[in-house]
């Protein structure tokens, strides 16, 4: 199960909500996360994101599994904050990261990529004045969302390969091939887009 970039067909209120409203909601959530300080505010915002995930009927177990890499990263960042600044900032960092990723997951899971592209292209229209094609901006954002699960899957495959050779504890053994494969996939993807004339 992947968390971001994985739209599924369902009929919840969030699936029916306008794409623009969901993107504005996500942006507001991001601003609130950055603008507010303190553990209670961070927990309230996390509660909002969890509530949205519940309304969107994201399946709990696969969603938790998808959140696991983010959770590990958040806990590492939290551990550093606990050591450097105390428990309050540590809880805040963990809650903020989970809130943002869960919020993004709700938007991508409840919005077909085609509609997301349309909304992003509309939002990027003013950039045309400075010579930036809005469709390309929209595609770039959609590809970033798509890339998150792709990268997670690549890392998982490379770690499996390292584990099969009894070397999973040494990060150098899987990190280098994982980076090389991600870069290679990005090049292949660019080539495929060029072949389909999508970036012409």
């Amino acid at each position, binding site marked *: 199960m*992947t968390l971001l*970039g*994985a*739209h*599924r*067909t369902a009929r919840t209120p969030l699936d029916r909500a306008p794409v623009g409203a969901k993107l504005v909601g996500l942006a507001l959530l991001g601003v609130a996360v950055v603008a507010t300080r303190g553990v209670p505010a961070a927990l309230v915002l996390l509660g909002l994101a969890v509530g949205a995930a519940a309304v969107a009927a994201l399946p709990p177990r696969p969603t938790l599994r998808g959140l696991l890499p983010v959770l590990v990263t958040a806990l590492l960042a939290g551990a550093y904050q606990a050591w450097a600044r105390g428990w309050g900032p540590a809880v805040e960092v963990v809650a903020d990261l989970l809130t943002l990723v869960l919020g993004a997951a709700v938007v991508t899971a409840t919005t*077909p*990529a*085609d509609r997301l*592209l*349309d909304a992003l292209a509309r939002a990027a229209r003013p950039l045309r004045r400075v010579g930036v094609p809005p*469709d390309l901006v929209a595609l770039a954002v*959609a*590809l970033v969302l*798509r890339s998150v699960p792709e990268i997670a899957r690549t890392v998982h495959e490379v770690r499996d390969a390292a584990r099969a050779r009894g070397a999973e504890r040494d990060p150098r053994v899987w990190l280098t091939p994982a980076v090389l494969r991600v870069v290679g*996939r990005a090049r*292949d*993807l660019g*080539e*495929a*887009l*060029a*072949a*389909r*004339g*999508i970036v*012409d």
Partner: protein
Amino acid sequence: MIELDGAVVTAYAPGEARRGAARVVTLLGPVTATLTERRVAVVGANGSGKSTLARLLNGLTLPSAGSVRVDGLDTARDGAAVRRRVGFLFTDPDAQVVMPTPVEDVALSLRRLGVPARERDARAREALGRVGLASRADLPVRALSGGQRQLLALAAVLATEPAVLVCDEPTTLLDLRWRRVVDGLLADLPQQVVQVTHDLDAAARADRVLVVDGGRVVHDGAPGAALDAYRALMAVEPA
């Protein structure tokens, strides 16, 4: 009609740029040929240059010398127009499929054509129906088998109604059953199809076969003689 006129593809030899005198190696050519047949197969050993030849045809690779024209359009000058006429199917559908679900991926191709949003979904489903994937339109791409993913890649290319379809080993990663399905679909297409392949049965069904070896077209003609020449080449132990 595809015209290759003395087309050459070169590249810098890897690892030599640091020494200040990078050596240029010829990957392909010169190739001169006019392809008018409906079904053209390209066969050759691994690394012989057949994929490079395929990539020349829709401007993914540009010739270092000579020219490639499709219906009079030069791939170097009119790249975007050439790609509108020439669809390209890769070996690995995972490299080609971009969106999370089949219907969205085909819709992405239609977006390029400027098809209005309200029509895209229906047309994408129609294109998927033509390759037998109508019931899989809303599934995550990851839930499709390798064969279904290749059909999806084909649907995404055909949705734009190209005049020519170039396929780079489209069945190499597929089992026999899916190979037959993809071969059957390719055989029924009204478009001109240029197919790079290791499948000699598929090559034997073509109207014309180009045999590529060491970056050169060493045989060009009817399937019988061309495939005999290819078998004779392959009888020699690899270096």
